[in-house]
C-alpha cells in the first residue's frame, strides 16, 4: 500500500511539474489584460456586483471587519484564507490600480505577476463583463479600510510551487468575457453569465479533476469534495439534480434558503444565500432559474 502511495505521489509530481513546467515555458496563463480605460465605475452598481460575485463569504470572517479577510477554507490542495480586500494600503488592496484588480480577477495574477491559487475563482471570474469589474472596483474603493494581518496560505508541496500555476491556467483558464449564446433568451444568457461567471456556482457544484480544474464534462453535477469536505449536491436539470423543481422553487431557495419540501438550506449554501443570492434582484434570480432549468 505504501509503495503504491509513493508511486502515486511520484507520478502526480512528475505530471504536475511537467504540466506546470510546460506552462511556465510557454508563458501560459497569460490572459491578455482588459482595456478598461474608457469605462466609468459606478460604486452603487459595484455593491451589487459584490453580491453577484459572492465575495463576502470568503473575504469576511464572522464577527470581523467587512471584507477584511475570511475564515480558513479547507480544500484537497491546502488550507486557504481569503485576504483583506478593503482599501487599507498596508494589508488590503488600497495601493492597487484598476488594471491590477482586473488582472487578479480575470487572470489570477497578483501585483508583480505572482500567480494566485484558483481558490480565488478566477477561472469563473474570467467571464465577467468589463463594466462589472470596473463597478466592483469603484465600490471596493469606498469600503471602510480595515487593517488585518498578512495571510499565509498553507499549501503542501508540490502545490506550494506557485509558478506551476501557469500550467494550471494553460489547462483551465479560458479568457472571457462571456459571449451570449444566440438562439437563447436574454434571461437564459443572463442566468448563464451569473451562474458560470461572477456567481461561480461550478466552483463547488462541479467536480474537479485530479489537477484541481473544473471537470467540464460533469458541469454542475455535484462534488464530494466541497469546502471542508462537504458533499455538494448536483444542480443539473435532471432527476439527480433539480429537474423536478419549478422556477419559483429555485427563486425561493436562492432568495430565502427555502427548499421545495419545506426544509431550509444550511451549511455553506446557507452562507451563499445570506451573503450573495438573497441580495440579488428577482429578475436575476429568475434568470438563474431559467438557465439552470434549461428553459
Amino acid at each position, binding site marked *: 500500500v505504501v509503495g503504491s502511495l509513493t508511486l502515486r505521489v511520484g507520478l502526480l509530481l512528475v505530471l504536475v511539474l511537467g504540466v506546470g513546467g510546460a506552462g511556465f515555458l510557454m508563458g501560459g496563463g497569460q490572459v491578455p489584460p482588459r482595456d478598461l480605460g474608457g469605462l466609468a465605475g459606478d460604486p452603487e452598481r459595484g455593491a451589487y456586483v459584490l453580491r453577484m460575485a459572492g465575495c463576502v463569504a470568503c473575504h469576511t470572517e464572522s464577527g470581523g471587519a467587512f471584507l477584511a479577510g475570511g475564515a480558513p477554507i479547507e480544500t484537497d490542495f491546502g488550507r486557504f484564507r481569503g485576504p483583506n480586500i478593503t482599501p487599507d494600503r498596508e494589508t488590503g488592496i488600497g495601493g492597487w490600480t484598476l488594471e491590477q484588480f482586473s488582472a487578479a480577477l480575470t487572470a489570477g495574477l497578483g501585483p508583480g505577476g505572482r500567480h494566485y491559487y484558483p481558490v480565488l475563482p478566477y477561472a469563473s471570474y474570467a467571464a465577467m463583463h468589463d463594466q462589472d469589474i470596473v463597478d466592483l472596483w469603484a465600490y471596493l474603493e469606498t469600503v471602510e479600510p480595515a487593517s488585518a494581518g498578512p495571510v499565509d496560505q498553507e499549501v503542501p508541496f508540490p502545490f506550494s510551487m506557485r509558478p506551476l500555476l501557469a500550467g494550471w491556467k494553460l489547462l483551465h483558464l479560458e479568457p472571457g468575457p462571456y459571449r451570449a449564446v444566440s438562439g437563447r433568451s436574454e434571461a437564459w444568457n443572463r442566468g448563464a453569465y451569473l451562474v458560470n461567471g461572477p456567481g461561480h456556482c461550478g466552483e463547488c457544484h462541479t467536480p474537479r479533476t485530479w489537477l484541481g480544474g473544473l471537470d467540464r464534462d460533469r458541469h454542475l453535477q455535484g462534488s464530494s469534495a466541497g469546502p471542508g469536505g462537504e458533499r455538494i449536491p448536483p444542480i443539473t436539470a435532471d432527476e439527480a439534480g433539480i429537474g423536478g423543481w*419549478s422556477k419559483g422553487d429555485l427563486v425561493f431557495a436562492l432568495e430565502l434558503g427555502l427548499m421545495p*419540501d419545506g426544509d431550509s438550506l*444550511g451549511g455553506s449554501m446557507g452562507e451563499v444565500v445570506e451573503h450573495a443570492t438573497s441580495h440579488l434582484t428577482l429578475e436575476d434570480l429568475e434568470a438563474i432559474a431559467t438557465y439552470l432549468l434549461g428553459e
Partner: protein
Amino acid sequence: MRARSAFGSIVLALSLGGGLALPAAADVFEQRSALMKEIGDQMRGLAPMFRGESPYDAADVRARAEAIAERAGERIATLFPEGTLRDDSRALPTIWEEWERFEALSGLLEERARTLAAAADGDDARRAFGEFANTCRNCHTDFRRPED
C-alpha cells in the same frame, strides 16, 4: 403566563400519547426530527401562496404560522438536551457550545412566526414570511451539518 404555559406543556405532553416528563435520548431525537418535519410541512403549504401559485388565504396563513409558533421557541430548545448527538443526527455540537445563541434563535423563530400570523391580512405578510424563512436558514447554517 407561566401557569398557562405549564398547563399548555401538560396538555401537549398528554396529547403526544404518554411522552410525559423527561423522554429518553432516543425519543428526543425522534421527537425533534418529527417537530422539524411538521414545521417544514407548514412552510411547504405557505410557499405557494407567497409565490402567487395558489390563491392567498389569510386565514390559512395565520393558522399555519400559529402552528409553527407552537412548535418553536422553548419547544425546540427542550428537545435539544445536551448529550443527544447521534451519528445519524445532523445537529452540530456548536448547539451546546453556543447554547444562548441557539436558544435565542429558537425564540426568534417563534416571535417571527407570531409576527407572520399577525401580519397575514396586511401588506407586510410577504416580508414577515421572508424574515421567518431567514431565521430557519440562519439556524441551519450555523447549527446543522450539511447532508452526507
